[in-house]
């Protein structure tokens, strides 16, 4: 009784905040569609296991081509996004720039690509734009916060009244944030490689293109070779993605795969015309329009409900997995080889496309939300776990020696909890975006209906649904900003929160 009284009195308590999120997730779990219906997965699992240990590259020319596309899409996308993000970040104090950035990043790469493929065909331009826009929005936010966070005293010393000239910016503000910005850009490159692989699933000629075909047709030996290639690319980044080599890497990327598009004004016009909602475009009678609205409303309601349900469950499970998983990359628990192995394990988990994890889950557990929940928890949990573990190196070892369990429960978690929540809040909007996207694999989140709309060339419906999904992401972003303001220490609040996203430890050798 006393406990509850105390609990209710703590207005700003993290315990209470955690309780609410966990309670919401539990309620969602009660409504979620979770069934295990497996009968004889053995055969397929055996084929998968056999494929995994016998990787085979069927056509080395095709493979090389896919590797080059994967690298050039991500390199071109990230470099251009860094440019776009940088320009936006200079004006990040303007509200409309912040809104623009938020809108750009609220739409998943896959959805951008589905739109651009309609306009530019299956082309390099479509792929690069699909990475450039959402990444530009994200980078603008992080660069902007990094600049805001930098020490204002040099700028004030130079111009006491505060100035905003270009040279003022380059000499007093940029140098202070430059290091953090560089680290963050390196981290985005890893994300971009993953994204360009995912773009292959919808038709762009990257590794994902062949991976999807291999998985779809049960050719697990090829799938295994492509996965190993992906892991090697992500892991090797730390050795070759360096600022001093960019002057050659970037031109090489643009020469190897110049931006090109198959586009004509007529196609663009047709697409834009198709995006006008059907009732207006075809001048439907009222009755038919109402039926259409009802049909659309059902899809929105079902899509939003399932997306929210799934995302809230995944958010809490991700948190639990991240706390536990972070110990694999923390100097408080492991050292030397054990830590390298642990971090390598997290790297593999976060690099595996959710698509693959989801498919394995489907075979083993049967169709329901469960495979998607597991896939997203492992993926997002591994990312936060890696960052949190790395961050834990900065805190002092516990003063009183104790066993690992006690250390975890009474020292590690309490000390890192604020930081942990900051990471989770930051990841929340991303989880919502990914949940919506995963629908294209069959769970009835918004992506399922978006995919169906593209399938039947209903671009008007697709665009409306994409806007709804963007709205959900924006709301999560807004709520998490509010919560961070209210509950977290000043240095973890949004305006100063850049260190939680810049992930400087990502490229340090473990």
């Amino acid at each position, binding site marked *: 009784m006393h406990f509850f009284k105390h609990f209710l009195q703590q207005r700003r308590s993290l315990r209470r905040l955690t309780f609410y999120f966990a309670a919401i997730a539990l309620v969602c779990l009660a409504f979620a569609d979770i069934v295990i*219906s*497996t*009968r*004889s*997965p053995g*055969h*397929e699992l055996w084929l998968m296991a056999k494929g995994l240990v016998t990787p085979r590259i*069927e*056509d080395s020319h095709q493979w*090389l*081509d896919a590797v*080059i596309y994967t690298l050039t899409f991500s390199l071109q996308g990230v470099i251009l996004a860094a440019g776009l993000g940088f320009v936006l970040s200079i004006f990040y104090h303007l509200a409309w720039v912040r809104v623009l950035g938020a809108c750009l990043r609220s739409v998943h790469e896959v959805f951008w690509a589905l739109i651009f*493929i*309609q306009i530019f*065909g*299956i082309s*390099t331009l479509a792929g690069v734009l699909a990475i450039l826009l959402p990444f530009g929005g994200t980078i603008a936010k992080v660069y902007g916060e990094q600049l805001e966070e930098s020490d204002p005293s040099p700028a004030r010393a130079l111009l006491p009244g505060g100035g905003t000239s270009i040279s003022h910016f380059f000499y007093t503000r940029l140098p202070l944030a430059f290091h953090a910005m560089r680290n963050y850009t390196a981290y985005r490159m890893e994300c971009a490689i993953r994204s360009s692989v995912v773009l292959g*699933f*919808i*038709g762009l000629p990257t590794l994902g*293109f*062949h991976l*999807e*075909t291999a998985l*779809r*047709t*049960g*050719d697990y030996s090829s799938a295994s070779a492509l996965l190993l290639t992906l892991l090697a690319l992500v892991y090797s980044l730390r050795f070759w993605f360096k600022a001093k*080599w960019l002057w*050659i890497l970037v031109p*090489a*990327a643009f*020469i*190897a*795969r*110049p931006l*090109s598009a*198959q586009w*004509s004004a007529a*196609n663009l016009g*047709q697409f834009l015309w198709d995006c006008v909602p*059907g009732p207006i475009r075809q001048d*439907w009678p009222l009755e*038919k329009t109402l*039926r*259409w609205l009802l*049909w659309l409303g059902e899809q929105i309601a079902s899509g939003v409900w399932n997306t929210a349900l799934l995302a809230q469950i995944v958010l809490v499970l991700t948190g639990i997995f991240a706390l536990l998983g972070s110990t694999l990359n923390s100097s408080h628990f492991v050292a030397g080889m054990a830590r390298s192995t642990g971090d390598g394990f997290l790297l593999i988990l976060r690099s595996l496309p959710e698509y693959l994890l989801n498919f394995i889950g*489907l*075979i083993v*557990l*049967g*169709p329901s939300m469960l495979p998607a929940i597991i896939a997203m928890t492992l993926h997002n949990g591994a990312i936060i776990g890696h960052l949190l573990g790395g961050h834990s190196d900065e805190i002092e070892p516990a003063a009183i020696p104790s066993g690992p369990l006690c250390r975890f429960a009474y020292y590690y978690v309490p000390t890192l909890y604020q930081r942990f929540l900051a990471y989770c809040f930051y990841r929340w909007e991303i989880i919502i975006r990914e949940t919506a996207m995963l629908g294209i694999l*069959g769970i009835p989140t918004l992506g399922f209906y978006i*995919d*169906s709309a*593209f*399938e*039947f*060339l*209903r671009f008007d419906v697709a665009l409306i649904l994409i806007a709804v999904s963007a709205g959900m992401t924006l709301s999560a972003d807004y709520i998490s900003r509010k919560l961070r303001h209210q509950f977290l220490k000043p240095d973890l609040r949004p305006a100063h929160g850049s260190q939680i996203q810049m992930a400087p430890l990502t490229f340090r050798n473990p």
Partner: protein
Amino acid sequence: MRYLTALLALLVSTSGFAVDTQRPQFTFTAIPDQNEAELVRRFGQVADYLSEQLKVDVEYIPVKSYPAAITAFRNNQVQLAWFGGLSGVQARRAVPGSEAIAQGYEDQFFKSYFIAHKSTGIEAGDGLPQAVAGRTFTFGSKGSTSGRLMPEFYIREAFGEAPEEVFSRVGFSGDHSRTVALVQSGAFEVGAVNYAVWEKAVANGDVDADQVSVIWTTPEYADYQWTVRGDIDQQFGAGFKEKLTRALLAIDDKAILDSFPRSRFVSADNDVYRAIEQTAQAIGLLDDF
């Protein structure tokens, strides 16, 4: 530095996208209902054959999805396409004046199989067994004729209800091979597949007869066809469509025919697919509300 230069040279040497902008390129595509490598092999042969017959440069571009094939056709990125029944209907609605010109001999008598996991205990029957009601069910791709449209039509005919009402769960596996894998593993209890894909899987030994079997065969319907854009003669000269149609019907190279696999190609027209179109309209897959 030397390695970087070498890498740069390698990148440049393998770069693609050499586009001949001088004269229109005759390009075709096909819906991706098979393994990518197999499609490239099959349609590469067709491209060579057509180049030779038509005396123009013919190129095949692979696409990843059914709508991508339709979009490419509508945007004139391809002038000819090997479509399924439903995708052909969608494409011809998107490009007025376009025509179905040829189909495989076997495509006149296409059919779908309903398959079920052994643990359901459903026996094969003359009609769609009533026992499938209440089970979990998977279609193939959302826009597939043999994996979605016709099975859905017969489900509605047998039960008088939408599949969502008939089954406890309805999924879309995305591909015929995956439908087989998912029903075989028991992830879904019942599924609908293209009969040709099933029979090939059986012949290859990919199907475990102890786990999964055919429980019903649908009546026959018209499926795959070659569809050409209506403005093809304006683009490539008068009489091009005629020449193209004749060339397709005259394919007698066993290697090409076996890769489809079809015994030969026969002429077709839009009316052959009227029934498919009406079915699609009836179940709300085309813009009718």
